[in-house]
Every structure is written in C-alpha cells, then in structure tokens.
C-alpha cells in the first residue's frame, strides 16, 4: 500500500491539557481510515492539526513522502487535504453556491462568472450523486444538507484526502448509506478518507483500517477484518461495558395512565414558511418515553421547537397537565418543569463565547440558589458546575474556559447535565446522544430510563432506530409532517420503522 499521509510525533497542548501526545499515524492511498475514541480523546484536535486549523507544537507531517508545513487551511487545501468539521463552517446568509465558491482554492474571480461556475458545481454534484439546491441560503437548510454542502466544498477543491469528523452523527440510516456510497466511490478513485465516528458497527463496516485514540495517543491500529467490537471498546476505555439488556418497560402502571402532554391538531411552519407539521396529535403519559422517528426534515425539528416555545404554532393546541401551553414562552415552560435538549447545540443549547461555568447558568440563572435578589451566587454556581462535571464525566480543565473549546461530545454532555439536573417533569430531548461516545450514550440512556421510572415523561427524537427501540415505550414515525405510524416499541422492528419512514403505508401496522 502506498502511503499518502504520515504523521510523526504530533503533539498539541492547550494550557496544561495535552490534547495530542506524540501521535504517529499512516494513511494509505485509497483507504477509509476510521478514528475511534472517547469524547475528548483528541480526535478533532489531531484532524485540525492536519487541516491547518491548529499548528502542532511538535511533530512532522509527510505528504506523499515529503515533509509539508500546514499553517493554514489554505495550505492544506493546496496539498489536497479537505475537512468536513464536526461543527459546520458555512456562512449562514450566503447561498449554497456562494459558500462552495468561497471555499479555498478557486476563490479568486469566483463570482465573475457565476453561471459557468454553477454549471461546474452542478456537474460535480451529478458525478457524485449529491443533490442540493444551489440557490438556497444556508440557514434554511437542515443539518443533513449542510453536511452535503461541506462535502461538495471539499470535492470542489479536488481533495485527495477527505477528513470527516463525525459525519453520521447528524444523518439518518438512509442518508448514512448514501454517504457510504459516496465514500466508496471516492476511495475507488484513489482518494483517501479519514472518518471519525462513535458508532462501532459503522466503523467495522466502512473502515478498511481502524485506529483507536485514548487520552491523546493512538493506542492501536487494526485492519477492520482483524478486530471485533469488544476489543475496540476495551481499548477505548480500558474496560468492558455491558450493553443495556432487553427493554425495561415502564414501572408506572398502565391501567391508570395519566396524560402529561397532549398535542392536538398542531400546525407549524418551517423557516422557509411552508407548513412542516401538519395537524399532529399525540399524547405522552406519566412515566412514558415517546420515541419520534423519521428522516430528517419531516417535521421533527419544527414539532420539537414548537413544543419548546421556540417556534410559533399556527394552529392547534398543546396541553401540559391539562393546562393550555400553546405558544407559551420558554421561560414559562421551564418554570412548569419542562426541559428541552435542543437539536442544534450551537444555535440554542450553549453560548460558546461564555465560560463553561456561565453555560451551566443558561435557563436557571434567575432561580434560587443560582441567584439571590438578582445577584449571581458565584460560589454556589461553581460548586454546582463542578458537581455536574464530575457526575457527567465532562472533560474540562478549567470552568472559566470558554465553552467553545470543549470537545463536541463534552459540549453535549454539558447541556445534558444542565437540563437533566432540573428535576424535570417533561423532557423534550432532540438527538440527545448525538456526538457522545458509547459510554456517555449508555449513561444518557440509563438516565432517561431512570427519570422515566421516577415518573417523568419523555419525548425522545432520534435518528438511530436501535436506541429508539431500546429506550422508548412507544414510537411514532413522522413523514412529511404527519404521523405515518404509531407503534409499541416492543413489538416493532427496524424494517417496519424503515418502511414507515420512507412513507410507505403498512397494512399490518397498528395505526391509532
């Protein structure tokens, strides 16, 4: 195998935090190389060192045998290294086409001949089977499509090495399959891919080789045929974990089912102004987990935002314990004991420019004991933050650090810790395990079940059918803004859900 990229002794330190500790790694031509590792292991940092976002403190990078200096993303792009980041780097109020043209190398004169450039981009998209409307502005696109734009951007620069940081975290199984096809196609052309993920099945399936990172070091590299899940888990953590076995069903008795949340005939518009939720009605009982499945863009986001008070419902009603809370502001919902784990953590869930400590205040800063007569109680807040950090195993060196410097998974853990610590009666969780490593994911599943058993009601939106079936009591499938099916989680299977998600009506589905 010919080596495309070789890293020797890459070290990157932030303050007293060694994010990368003398990493050696070889990437072959035409391979898909998977990078695994727990949250905060240093995967993103390593990739940033390759793609010119960070300059390593020590170590050398060789490209096709020659040492190269990558000081800026442009340097990397010139060599043929392109990265799709965990947090997308698109300009929100520019169109898809403008974003693609703006990127990297062919930037100069990009806007002089827009029509021709557009044809070029369209041609490129067709050859890879990637489809997006080039004239839409980025802010109007769902996450899945934004990622596609990022991939097109990289391909437009003719990258030989494509780095994807947790690309499937935001994708549905179908979209993941599509992505895999594209990746296979790319490697068949001799391009190489570095693929970061927390999903082991995926790693084993798509990867030619797999490297496991732990505490800033690469602990082992395998050919994916020579390794199994258990070994990977052991290496990542240094111990084995048991899976959640079987579906524990709710301990709250079903015969006197108490309805906590009731949604009646709800209509909600999306950002583009078209109706995204078309007359949805649903109920969640006390101590129940209602799973919501569906291909991204079928109304889940709009439904959740409407329930959480972040988006106006244009018709219909929402009742919480028989109280009408339709279009109530988030503050009122919070005070009623409703918490929301938002889908887009950078838009809603956190303020990256604020310190970790201040991020723990979001949503409860005005409550005792966080504040007393308008004054923030710094001592208590710090104690509370430290406690949550320990409980949720968040990797933070200093709580005064800006939250944007936390690793992706640790940001998600911060939000979960903050929201779940509020003794909620209703938890609206949109993709809560997105970006979490397997240990943290398991922890969150257990937490949700624990809250359910304590009597909380939970709405659980996910694109992972496995976890939906594992954790939920009931699952509804959304298709084009309507409920395509409502099933008991125990009695359904992936195939049925897949059918419903694709919009096929089922003869034998137990529709309500």
């Amino acid at each position, binding site marked *: 195998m010919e080596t495309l990229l070789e890293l020797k002794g890459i070290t990157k330190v932030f303050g007293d935090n060694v994010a990368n500790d003398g990493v050696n790694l070889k990437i072959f031509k035409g391979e898909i190389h998977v990078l695994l590792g727990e949250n905060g292991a240093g995967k993103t940092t390593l990739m940033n060192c390759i793609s010119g976002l960070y300059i390593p403190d020590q170590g050398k990078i060789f490209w096709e045998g020659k040492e190269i200096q990558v000081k800026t993303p442009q340097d990397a792009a010139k060599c043929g290294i392109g990265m799709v980041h965990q947090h997308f780097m698109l300009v929100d109020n520019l169109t898809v086409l403008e974003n693609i043209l703006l990127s990297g190398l062919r930037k100069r004169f990009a806007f002089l001949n827009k029509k021709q450039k557009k044809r070029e981009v369209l041609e490129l998209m067709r050859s890879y089977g990637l489809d997006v409307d080039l004239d839409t502005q980025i802010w109007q696109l769902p996450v899945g499509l934004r990622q596609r734009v990022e991939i097109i951007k990289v391909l437009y620069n003719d990258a030989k090495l494509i780095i994807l940081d947790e690309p499937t975290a935001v994708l549905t199984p179908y979209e993941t399959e599509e992505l895999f096809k594209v990746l296979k196609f790319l490697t068949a052309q001799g391009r190489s891919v570095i693929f970061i993920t927390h999903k082991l099945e995926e790693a084993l399936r798509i990867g030619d080789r797999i490297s496991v990172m732990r505490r800033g070091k690469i602990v082992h590299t395998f050919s994916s045929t020579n390794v199994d899940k258990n070994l990977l888990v052991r290496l990542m953590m240094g111990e084995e974990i048991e899976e959640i076995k079987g579906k524990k069903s709710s301990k709250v008795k079903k015969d006197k089912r108490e309805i906590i949340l009731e949604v009646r005939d709800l209509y909600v518009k999306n950002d583009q102004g078209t109706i995204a939720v078309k007359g949805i009605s649903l109920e969640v009982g006390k101590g129940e987990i209602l799973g919501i499945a569906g291909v991204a863009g079928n109304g889940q986001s709009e439904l959740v935002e409407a329930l*959480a008070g*972040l988006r106006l419902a244009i018709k219909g009603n929402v009742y919480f314990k028989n109280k009408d809370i339709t279009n109530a*502001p988030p*503050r009122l919902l919070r005070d009623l004991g409703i918490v929301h784990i938002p889908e887009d953590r950078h*838009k809603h869930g956190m*303020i990256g*420019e*604020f310190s970790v400590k201040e991020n723990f205040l979001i949503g409860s800063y005005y409550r005792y004991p966080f*504040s007393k007569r308008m004054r*923030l109680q710094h001592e208590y807040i710090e104690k509370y933050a430290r406690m949550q950090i320990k409980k949720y195993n968040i990797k933070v060196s200093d709580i005064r650090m800006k939250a944007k410097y936390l690793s992706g998974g640790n940001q998600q853990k911060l939000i979960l810790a903050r929201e779940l610590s509020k003794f909620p009666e209703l938890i609206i969780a949109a993709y809560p395990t997105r970006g979490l490593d397997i240990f943290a994911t398991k922890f969150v599943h257990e937490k949700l079940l624990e809250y359910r058993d304590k009597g909380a009601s939970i709405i659980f939106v996910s694109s992972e059918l496995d976890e939906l079936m594992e954790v939920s009591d009931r699952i509804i499938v959304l298709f084009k803004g309507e409920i395509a099916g409502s099933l008991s989680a125990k009695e359904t299977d992936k195939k049925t859900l897949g059918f419903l998600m694709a919009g096929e009506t089922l003869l034998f589905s137990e529709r309500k």
Partner: protein
Amino acid sequence: MSNRNLISFLRVFEKDSVIESVITPIIGLVVGLLIVAIIILLEGVNPITAYQELIFGAIGTKINLFSTLLKFIPLSFTGLAVTLAYRAGVFNIGAEGQLYIGALVATWVAIKVNLPFYLPSLLALISGMIVGGFFAFIPAYLKVEKGINEVLTTILMNYVGINIVGFSVNSFLMEKGQTAPQSPLIERSAHLPIIAKLEGIHLHIGIVLVFVIAFLMYDIFWNTTWGFEIRSVSINIEASKYGGINAKKVIMIVMFVSGAIASLAGSTEVLGVQYRLMENFMTGYGYDGITVALLGGLNPLGVLAAAFFLGALRNGAYSMQIATGIPISIIYVVQALAILSIISASALYKKFLAEN
C-alpha cells in the same frame, strides 16, 4: 440581525479583564503618539518638546488637570452609554443626539423650576435622562419590532437632537434682548454641586456620578442576572431565548438606559460648566464615546481609563498648539492610530496564541 458580522468583528476590542481593559488604551495611545512623533518631526518640531507641552497642558498644573477632568466627565458618560448598548448587541451611534436633547431638557427645567437645595439640578438631570432615554428607545423599538437597523436610526436621531437644540435656542429658549443663539444664564440655585474649586474652574459632582455608574455597570455585567441577560442577548439571541430571556425587552430597556447615561454628558456640562445652553455647545462628544468605548475594551472600568487619556490628549493639545504650532487636529490621528494598533495587536495576539 444584520449586525452579527459587525459585532463579531468588534469582539477583538472586548476585554472582560479589568487590567487588560485599562492597559489596552495606554498601549494604543502610546503607539499612536510614537507614530505621530514622526509626523511632528517632519514638521520640523522636536517631538519631545511637543509631547512635553502636551503632558504639561494635560496634567502639568492643578488647573490643567481640572480642565482635563472636565473633558473626562462627558467622554466617560458617552463611552459608558456606548459600552452598555454594545454589551446587549446594539450599536448606539446616537449618543450625540441623546446628549443634546438631554442638555436641552435639563436647561429648560433648570430655568423654569424654582426650588431650594440643589433640587432644580436634580430634577433637571432626571428629566434630561428620561428624554435622552426615550430618544434612544425609539431606535431600539424600531429595531426589535420592525427590524430597522439601529445604526441608521440612531445616526438620523442625532440630526434631530442637534437641530431641536438649534431651534430652541433661537426661539423660546433664547435669551431676551440677545441675538446670539443661546439660552439665558442658569440661576445659581440650579447649578450642580461643586466638589472642588480652583481659580474660576469648578469641578462638579458629575465626576462622582461617572465613577458610580461605571462601577455599578461593571458589577451588573458580571455579578447580576441582568448582566447575564444583557451579555447573553448580545452573543447569541437564539440561545438566550431558549434560556428564557425576553431579548426584545432586554434590548429596549438597555437602550433606554444607554440614552439616559448619554444625556448626562450634555446635562452635566450645561449645569456644571457652561451654565447656559448654546447652539453646538459640545460637538462630537457622542461620536467620541464610540472611540472611548472601543479603546476601553468595552469594559466600564476600561472606559474610565480611556476617557481620561482622551480628555488629557484633548486638553494637552491646546498647549501643544500654542507652544509648537502643531495643530490640535493631530490628536484625531493619534486616536485613529490607537484604534488601529489595538486591532492589529489583537490579531497578532490571536496568531501568537494559535501558534503556541
């Protein structure tokens, strides 16, 4: 929100640490003065002599220091006003208009009201604050309810404020039997309390007010729930809504208070220094407030430092002109260079951080 990009650009100025925010204006101005030294040299003047004159004029004698302080007061007020608005993500370019209208209302009240014990001046300041606040509230309302960019509206309001003053001192507020556009003298009983006096120069209570407001603002920003709301709104409106903050309300209240603080620049000047309102009685202090805010790291305590140095520069420039013939306007070059050097220093610092 069309100002997102501007806000993120201005973030290079933001200094949350007090020490940094006080040191930055010093470094900026020193760099500015060093570069301007070359220009002075080219003019055939020894920059050392010129700067000696400058420093002497600024703080060389007690009187000079007093008049520097009298410039420091309004610069601080407008600098604080701009800082407050910025921290909630709003650009208050309208401090000029707010201080004019504040001065007008304060003058009118001071002339009309006849009460003992400094009450007229207190009433005058408060009325000025209310109207100045209202003047800033209008752009805030238009911003949150109609989506109109406040940069535009606050600038337009400046013309409104300045011209209303011009009209007033030429009509109902004009001194009887005079042709100059100015109000009658304000009675002694309506002057601001004087805390120190030196050969005809009076240092009024406004200086105490400046410090009170600056420290209060600092405390509010970092130790209270209001401050948390204000800062959240400026950085991430979506996340602040998610966290239960009513962003519209925050923006409107903050702008009202910002306008009220700006009005004090005008009203204290009239009631404590000039004792009458004249057309164009203090040109440019509203806009200078922006420079002060940026130099001061958009931090209330940094603003005090920046306002003092700019005040000193202004005041010293007179002596420098008289002694060496270097025109006063050179200090605007110094100011601009100071701002530019802070931008470049911040960029270099970031690069340094990235590489190490």
